[in-house]
């Protein structure tokens, strides 16, 4: 149940950041300006969020003229899905042990 990609979880823990990421997933490539219009926070705030998302590998930016176009890399979310699988295995194994404990309590 180790979280290999700590950054990923932290970066998506913030609702505004998640919203920015969602928006990129749904709408495709966007500029900071377009994202700011939707995010309801200031442009510098959006830029900061984009830096965090880039560091987590969730977003990539490419230069187009004077502007940077950002796009989502949703395959970067796989660790999140793997986390759910790991937690399921963790609890399954613990339930096996719980069964042993319950048997012992019976004696």
């Amino acid at each position: 149940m180790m979280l290999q990609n700590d950054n990923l979880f932290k970066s998506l823990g913030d609702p505004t950041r998640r919203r920015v990421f969602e928006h990129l997933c749904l709408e495709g490539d966007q500029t900071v300006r377009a994202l700011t219009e939707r995010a309801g926070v200031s442009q510098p705030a959006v830029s900061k969020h984009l830096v965090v998302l880039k560091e987590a590998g969730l977003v990539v930016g490419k230069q187009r003229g004077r502007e940077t176009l950002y796009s989502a890399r949703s395959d970067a979310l796989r660790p999140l899905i793997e986390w759910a699988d790991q937690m399921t295995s963790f609890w399954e194994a613990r339930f096996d042990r719980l069964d042993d404990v319950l048997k012992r309590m019976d004696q």
Partner: protein
Amino acid sequence: MTVGQSRTQTVVVERDFAHPLERVWRALTQPELMEDWLMKSDFRLEIDHRFHFQAEWGEIDCKVMEIEPQRSLTYTWSAFDVETVVTFTLEQIETGTRLRMEQSGFHADQKHAFRGAESGWAAFFHILEQTLENY
């Protein structure tokens, strides 16, 4: 690739134990028994009690959220700055006790969600699911 929404959003493990409900409840709530199947902790069956599980790789910070004696128990479960919520639900069945463990993700930001439910994790995973289908 299709990602089942329920699978990613919440981890659910359910099992029937051939033991009386009262015994299962004790195993879930008495630290000396919890240690034998789950982890060592300083748990107390008390609302708002903060405690830690000691895992081999570090500590898990927890806080008791809800107690319904012999029915359900909820605590937060934070590891690596990720806060999740674990809820155990017990149900008496003919053969013993049905125990359901539900671990839902990222509870913390539900409280200060940017735009309420629409930016919650449920919506997020729904979008993720749609996006991954295109890959």
